[in-house]
């Protein structure tokens, strides 16, 4: 995998620069009299870009802390303050960072405004409330009721969410004292639409056999759609990335691993501090994880002609906010589209929002695909809840099972 990363320096370099500029700009924001809003990875961030507010994603910063193996130290700091170790590792790492001030990138600026969209999870709304008290700044709970499969409910839900978008626009006008520019929103949304399409195209490269990308690539390149969607840079970036992969891999029939037998689905978020190890370990067994519903959470399908309506619909219907049947259907669709033949289901102690349905989901997916699943419990960020030996043994045993079944 390391090798493959070096073969496409261009997109990687661009990403590095974009990230540097983004965080640099954010850190200078207050000096430049700009506002900083914290927001959740799934949220109508287009409103911030349209209103010239710099969005910051504490989750992203937490990912850097987790991959930098700063857990459990950060967690222990806030456990001392009375927070429990079974909260989401992102939240623990973030609250810990605020106590000790240590960060792999020199920190993130303090917020002027907080937006918590609960389509992604409920945790964030509570975590941001803690921050809101800490900094004495408003928190806007952007409430997206579960997008249940009933027409009347859906109609009302979209109406409610649109109403909140209007309320948020008012809140932003109040914060900045500036009028919101709806034309600018259309422009931003145009970029989001384009970037989302390209992002999906990038993810879908994994449907090619052998696959030129693994979920490892998806997770690395996901960062841009998360924090720069709504900008032209994001659009250009994914164009560049796709061209590069097509040129270097697809056109030559080169796969991400040399001998691809097992094309795996991964349920849940990655175990951040172990993901590279997992990929290497699997590659040695001719297996590669190709996709996950999690990575697809940012492949939105916007309709630029109806900005508020389309934002409402897209952000409400993310996989973590639909009924289990819908979520299973989306996963099963990925099995078909990507010709997957294995299923690793990670029960993530950190993320209740994604995990509490997994036991049920497992049966639903097995029933449809006939492919056995490996289910295991651990934590995406806290090594105290991770058992190396046990997980490796189970992965090996699982691949042997697939082998015995003549899969791959």
């Amino acid at each position: 995998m390391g090798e493959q990363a070096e073969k496409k320096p261009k997109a990687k370099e661009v990403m590095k620069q974009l990230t540097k500029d983004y965080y640099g700009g954010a850190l200078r924001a207050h000096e430049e009299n700009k506002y900083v809003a914290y927001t959740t990875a799934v949220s109508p961030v287009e409103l911030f870009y349209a209103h010239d507010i710099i969005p910051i994603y504490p989750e992203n910063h937490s990912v850097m802390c987790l991959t930098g193996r700063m857990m459990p130290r950060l967690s222990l700091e806030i456990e001392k303050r009375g927070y429990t170790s079974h909260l989401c590792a992102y939240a623990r790492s973030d609250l810990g960072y605020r106590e000790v001030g240590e960060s792999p990138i020199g920190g993130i600026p303090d917020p002027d405004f907080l937006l918590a969209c609960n389509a992604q999870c409920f945790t964030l709304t509570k975590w941001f409330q803690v921050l809101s008290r800490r900094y004495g700044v408003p928190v806007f709970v952007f409430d997206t009721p579960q997008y249940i499969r009933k027409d009347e409910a859906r109609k009302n839900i979209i109406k409610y969410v649109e109403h909140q978008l209007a309320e948020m626009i008012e809140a932003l006008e109040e914060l900045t004292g500036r009028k919101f520019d709806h034309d600018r929103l259309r422009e931003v949304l145009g970029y989001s639409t384009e970037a989302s399409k390209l992002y999906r195209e990038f993810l879908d490269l994994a449907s090619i056999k052998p696959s030129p990308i693994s979920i490892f690539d998806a997770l690395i390149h996901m960062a841009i759609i998360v924090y720069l969607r709504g900008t032209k840079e994001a659009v250009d970036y994914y164009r560049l990335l796709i061209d590069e992969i097509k040129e270097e891999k697809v056109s030559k029939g080169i796969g991400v691993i040399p001998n691809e037998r097992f094309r795996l689905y991964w349920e849940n978020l990655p175990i951040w501090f172990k993901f590279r190890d997992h990929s290497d370990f699997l590659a040695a067994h001719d297996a590669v994880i190709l996709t996950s519903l999690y990575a697809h959470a940012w492949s939105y399908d916007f309709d630029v002609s109806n900005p508020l309506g389309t934002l409402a619909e897209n952000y409400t219907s993310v996989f973590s906010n639909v009924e289990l049947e819908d979520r299973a259907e989306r996963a099963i669709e990925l099995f078909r589209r990507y010709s997957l033949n294995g299923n690793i289901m990670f029960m993530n102690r950190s993320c209740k929002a994604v995990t509490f349905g997994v036991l049920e989901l497992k049966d639903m997916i097995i029933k449809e695909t006939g492919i056995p699943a490996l289910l295991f419990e651990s934590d995406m960020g806290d090594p105290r809840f991770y058992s190396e030996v046990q997980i490796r043994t189970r992965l090996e045993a699982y691949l042997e099972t697939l082998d015995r079944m003549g899969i791959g």
Partner: protein
Amino acid sequence: MNRPVLEELLSIARDPCPMLKAWRRKGEKRKIIGSTLTDVPEELIHAAGMLPFTILGTNKSILRASAHLPDNACSQARSDLEMVLTYQGDFFDGYILPQVDDTTQHLSDIWRRQVRWDYFETFLLPRQIDRPSARQWLLDETLRLKRSLESFTGKEISEGRLWESIGIYNQNRGYLRRLYEMKRRHPDFISNRQFFDLIKSSMWWPKEEHNGLLERFISGLEETDLMGKEGEGIRVVLSGIVWEPPEIMDILDQSGLKVVGDDLCVGWRYIDPDVEANGDPVKAIVDRHFKKGPFTPIYDKGNKIFENLLNLVTRNTAEGVIYLHIKFNESQDYDLPDLIENMEGEGIPIFVVETEYQTTHLAGIRTRIQAFGESLAQK
């Protein structure tokens, strides 16, 4: 004091099912609709000609629910699921599951798939109540619930019927608040366990019957039941969602702690306020929702949980707070460190008890609560 009536009410709180079954045998035809905590507008179910019943889990071991809901989900959700899967699945005709957080959202998906039912609805409560959108949303959602109930029964819920139900529910809340007031003034007139069991029995028993029982109990009270006890005991405020396992309340009683205020979903939040009887009845029900005390998963501007708790302590001249924390309840997990700091900043002692529905080792909890009580007494 009318002891037999009190005993009857308390026996409902011990286990309502045999009695409800007996009620059915006596010819009760109404369907029973179970709903989990909290804030389902029971008046609507009642007006639809059915019997609302609040599902409050089981204290028995979790056996079947574990296959569906992971062990780090709160025991409230797991016990509710366990109860319907194992014990009383046949008892209910339908369910309404309110949603407030990730746990309730998943619970409702699992329930819909794993439990047998003739009727199932989720009730999508607003998770913010600080903006106008929440009110409109709850109105739309309540109207949807109304139509859904109507289509299940095939009968329209008329305004008249709904007002009638609201009247019955208001009356019930009124009786319970009156008793609470008596308990506040004369903390020894009824034990904590007995009083909160009265509220529990109200969540489990047909309201018109319950009103009759409460009325007989109240009218049977004599002056000697209330006199001469003012100011006795150590006055505390109880905070949280539920008081489980029930032995917790016995421990408070045995430790000489008198509950004079609370913000529990199975306490004050259930009995206050009334639905105001004017205008449109559905709107009136929705209005009531926004006047209730704070509830941890629901966001409201400011630091409402703390402000409300502080107010409860001051208003009721309590000496401290006992906070009942359900293990794995994330909302409470996030609230607690700041809440403790804020309360202590006000000089108000707060003691947190972490329990689960299945907590059986109560000796340690008892010792610590007693120690807290003693420290309050010495103040």
